[in-house]
Structure formats: C-alpha cells, structure tokens
C-alpha cells in the first residue's frame, strides 16, 4: 500500500507541485491549506509524513509541528519544513520544535523524493 503524505501550504500552486511530485513517485497525498487545517486533519487521520510550509495564516509551520508532536496519532512521523526561509535561526527554531528536515524553496522533484525516501526509511 502506498504511503500517505500530508502537504500543508497556503499556496495552492505549491501544494499542487508537491502533490504532483509525490504522486508521480507513487505516494498518496492529502492536502491542508494552512497549519490549523493540517492539525485538524492530523487529529483524525494517520499519515506517514508531513511536509509543511513555515509561514501560513491561522497557524504557522512551527506551531503545527508543536501541535503534531504534542498530539498522539501522528506524534512520531517525520516532518519536513518546505519554505522560502533560509535563516539559520529559523531552522534552529524548526529543529527545536521537532522538524526532521528543512528544504528551502524552490525544490527539485528528485530532491524532494530523495528526502522523502530517506526519512520514510
């Protein structure tokens, strides 16, 4: 059975490209339009991995990571930040919140898939 990955981003076109890339590689994808939407969905749906943007309305990426790590269903899943932010301070913040990795946009499809394969084992 294909692994299920959530992509959380307030940009529909970014979600579209992430979904397209993952689906081409054989993964199933569920989308969330912001951190709050993602956290709500992750409360009831088990996924294998989360790829999230940092700056989103309602709840940002750091808040989302903290929410997921503090929850139960998806507490231990790999979470990769996919953002335009490249500041070390922000990365450190993400790492401290429980992020597994950090990808600065734009990503190349093969990069994203390599990272997904790596963190999903």
């Amino acid at each position, binding site marked *: 059975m294909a692994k299920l990955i959530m992509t959380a981003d307030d*940009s*529909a*076109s*970014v979600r*579209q*490209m992430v979904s*397209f890339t993952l689906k081409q590689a054989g993964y199933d994808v569920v989308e969330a339009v912001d951190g709050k939407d993602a956290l709500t969905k992750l409360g009831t749906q088990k996924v294998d991995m989360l790829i999230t943007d940092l700056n989103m309305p309602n709840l940002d990426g750091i808040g989302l990571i903290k929410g997921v790590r503090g929850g139960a269903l998806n507490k231990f899943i790999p979470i990769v930040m996919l953002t*335009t932010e490249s500041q070390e301070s922000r990365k450190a913040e993400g790492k401290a919140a429980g992020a597994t990795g950090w*990808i600065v946009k734009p990503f190349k499809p093969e990069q994203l898939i390599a990272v997904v394969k*790596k963190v999903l084992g």
Partner: protein
Amino acid sequence: MTPHLCNQVAQWNSCLTPTMEVLRQLSGCTEDQFLELGGKLQDFAFRSSGISSVSNNLVELVAGAESNQLTERLRNLFAQMNSYLDQVNTQGNQSCSTLEQIMVQLENVVRPLEGFQKMDKALRMLSISTKIESARLGELGAGFTTLAMDVEKLSQTVSEKSAGIMAQRQSLAQLINGNLQMVRSTEEHQYADAQKILAAVGNNLETLANLNATCSATGNQVAVISEQISSDIGAVVASMQFHDITRQQIEHVIEALEKLQQHTCDKATPNEDTCPALVAEIGDICELQTAQTRHATDQLTKATNTILDSLRDIGAKQTQISQELQQALMGSSDSTETSLLDTMEKEMHRVTLILQNCDRADQELAAAMHKVTSTMAEIGGFVSDIEAVGSEIDLIALNAQIKAAHTGPQGAALGVLAEAIKRLSLDAVIQTEAVSNTLQAINAITASIADQSFLEVEDGSQPVSEMEQEARQIITSLSGINHSLQQQLSTLARTAESLSDEINQTTSSIHVHEEIQQQTEQVIQALEQVYAEARSLVPASSEFRDNLRHMEQRYTMESERMIHEMLAARHGVQLSLQKQQTSAGSESEYGDNVDLF
C-alpha cells in the same frame, strides 16, 4: 529649503499609495493562472509518460526477446528451406536421370516384343500347316488336329501377353514423360523462384538483425530522451514555485513600503531637523525596494521562460522520439504503410506456397514411382506367362516329334513341322530372356527410388509439412507483431503530434510574466523616480549604511539578502549575508537547500 523638502515628502508619500495598490494586485492575481498551468503540466507529464511507455513497448516489440526468438526461428527455417531446396534440386536431377534410364530400357523391350509378334505369326502358320497335313494323312493324322489346336491356343496366348506388355510399356512411357516434364518444370520455375525468394528472405533477415540493433540503439535514445523529459518536468516543477516565491517577495516590498509610509505619516509635521533624514530614508527604502522588485520580476520572468522552454522541449522531444522510431522501424521504405515486417510476411507466404507446390510435385513423383513399380510387377506377370508358353511349346514340339515318328514315312512332313515348333520354343526362351533382362534392369533402377520420397529427406531435417507449419506460425507471429507495430506507431505519432500541438497552444497563451513585468515596470519607475528625487535632495546617509546592517533581519529569503548585500556593497558596506553557515551534514547529498536534522 526645509519646507520644500517637507512638501516633497508628502508628495512622495501620496505617490506610494497607488504604487502599493498595484503591488497588492500583483501579489494575488497570478495564482489561478499558475494553477491552471500546473494542471496542464500534470496532463502533459501523464501523456508524455504514455508516449515514453509506447515507445519502449515498440522497441521491446521489435528488439525484445520475442522478436529475437522469432528472428532465430526464421534463421533456422531459412537454413532448413535452403537445405531442402538443395536436396530437392539434387533429387529432381536424380529422378530425371532415373526416368530417362527407364525410358531407354523401355525402348529395349520393343525388339523382343516384336519377336513375340513374329512367334505368334509362326505359331499360327504352323497350326494351319499341321491341320492341312493332318487332313492329308486322314486316319493316320487324327492326333495332329488336337496338336494344331494347342499350337493355335499358344499363339493366342503369346499375342495377348505381348500386347499386354506393349500396352503397359506405352502407358509407362507416357507416365514417365509426364513426370519428366513436371520435374523439369518444377525445377525450372518453382525451385528457381524459391531460391530467389529465399535469397531475399536471407537479405531481409540481415536487415531484420540490423533493425533489431537499430531499435536497441533507438531504445537507448528513447531512454535518454525520457530522462531529459523528466528533467524538463523537474525544471517546470521548480520554476512553478517561483510564482509563490515572487508573491512573497512582492509582499515583503509592500510591507517595507507600508512601514515607510507609516513612518512618514507618523512624522506628520516634519521639521527642519527631521526632514532631511526622512528624505534620505525614503531614498534608501525606495532604492532598496526598487532592486528587490526588479529582482523578483526578473526571477519570475526567468522562471516562466524556463517553464515555456521546458514545455516546448517536452513537445519537441516527444515528436523526436516518434520520428526516430518511425524512421528506425519503417527504414527507407517509400510507403509508411509498408514495413520490413510487411515484406517479410509476404515473402513467407510466397515461400509457403512454393513449398506446397514442391510438396505436391514430390507426392506426384512418388506416386509415379509407385506406379512404375506396380506396372513392372504386372509386366513381370506377363513375362512369366510367356515363359510358361515357351515350355509348353517345347512339350508340344516333343509330342509332335514322337507322333510323327510313330506315323512312319508318311508323317515325315509333320516331323518337319514339329522341328519348326521346337525352334520356336527356343526363340520364345531367347525373347523372354531379353524382355526379362530389360525388366530386371528397370526394376533395379526403380528399386533405388521406389521408397524414396522428398517428404522424408535423408539427413533427417524437417519435412515440408513441418516447415510449412513453422512458416505459418512465424507468419502469424510476424503478422501479430506487424499489426501491433503499425497500430502503436500510428498511436504514437498521433499522440506525440497532439501533445506537441497542445503544448504549443499552451505556451503561446502564457503571457503572465509579460503582464507582471509590464505592471512592475510602472512600480519600478515610480519608485526610481522617488529615490532619484530624494537622492538629488539628500544623498545616502551614513545612518542608512548603518541601517543596512540590521535591515537584513527582515528578509526571509537568500535572494533578498543577496540583493540587499549588493546594494550595501554599492554604498560601501560589506555584509556577508549570503553565505550563512549551513547545518552540518547533508547538503552535499541532497543539495544546498536541504538540511536533515
């Protein structure tokens, strides 16, 4: 001068409002267009993948295991057919020679048979003479009447048997002549045609082997092109994200301008102390945001051009795949409807027909040989009968001699007749031996080929029926491959053309970058005008240079910091914002933009 500056600040401030409005519209207006483009990209990628898949199928069809196996089977069949035809040719020549020898021997039967006819006449004459002599003798010659009747019967038997042999000889001669013509005609036309076709099949086999090699090479080429297409799709996916990146950059510009506007509004009544600093700040911010806006627009334009180029490249490469496969598979054929496999299929049909004709000729020849053998047996029966007649004549002659001796001097004439009958018995033996020897010679000739049939050739290779069956199976496989080939090539060409057309339509309808560039140009001009006017009134301050050091904190993107650094460098401030220390570890494995914690 200060009131003028203050008025100018107010004027610039009001100028920024429409500029920011344009930027706000820009930051949200392209999402739908990029989403639609993303949808099309997915469709193109899916169809492109389908084309690559069909291309690989075609290569596999022509250069794959099944095709190679078929080529090998064809090669074997070709060798067997060649061997068979060589053997047929040799045996045809042998058969002709044998039949010609039989014809010569049949001619040899004619003279002894003529001897039998003379014997028949002599016997009849002797019978009449015996009857006459018997009548002259009266009572004394009474026993000779029976003798005369026996002699007459013998003459009839000799006549019938020799006529039977003659009729069989003629029938055999006709049969052999007919078969000789048939064998020679088969040799002249069928075998020659078969050799010609087999030579063509041999050439086509080589062409097929070359085609397999070409297709394998094309397969590698298809794989390379598919990789390039995959890379093109990757480039589009990466470039599509610049829509979001540019949106954020424009939002950052708006944010900076909003703050500037807020700042100037807060100082609603600038005095002569604060006004120059405010002018300098306006110049600083507008210069910086001009550079950021220009960079964002250039980046989006570049990304959109990459999208357009990559999409066009995908269409062109799929057309290239289709054309290369078309060229490789159809070769130099004038008609796109006729492929090498088409030609080979037709040739195999012709070879099968010729083999069937050869088989039929072979069966006819075998039947003729059986007929020769059975006729020879019948002739042998006649010869035995004539041999028996010879013995009977001998006995009758002996009986006549004894009776003539008993009759005394009056039966002397009958004694002469008895002598004549005795001589005839010797003639009968000689003629019978002559016919018998000829028949034995014919039997010896026919015995060597009587059981020989082309259906079972000496070296144990496949008989014609098996070769026909193999040819039919190969034709069926060739036909299947050919049908599939034509169908898939046609589908491939259609799909590639339609994809290319649609990509061209899509790319020619993309103007989002031009529209954005046009609108940002207005923004840039407005900002450039503000900062040029501001700079002309108050040059860049040392305070600005200090500000540059902490303003970078506002940026979230590497490219924004790079622009900031370049501008700082222009004002003599050295910043090292681009090369931030990256987290240790994985950037080399996944790229500079990836960190795994």
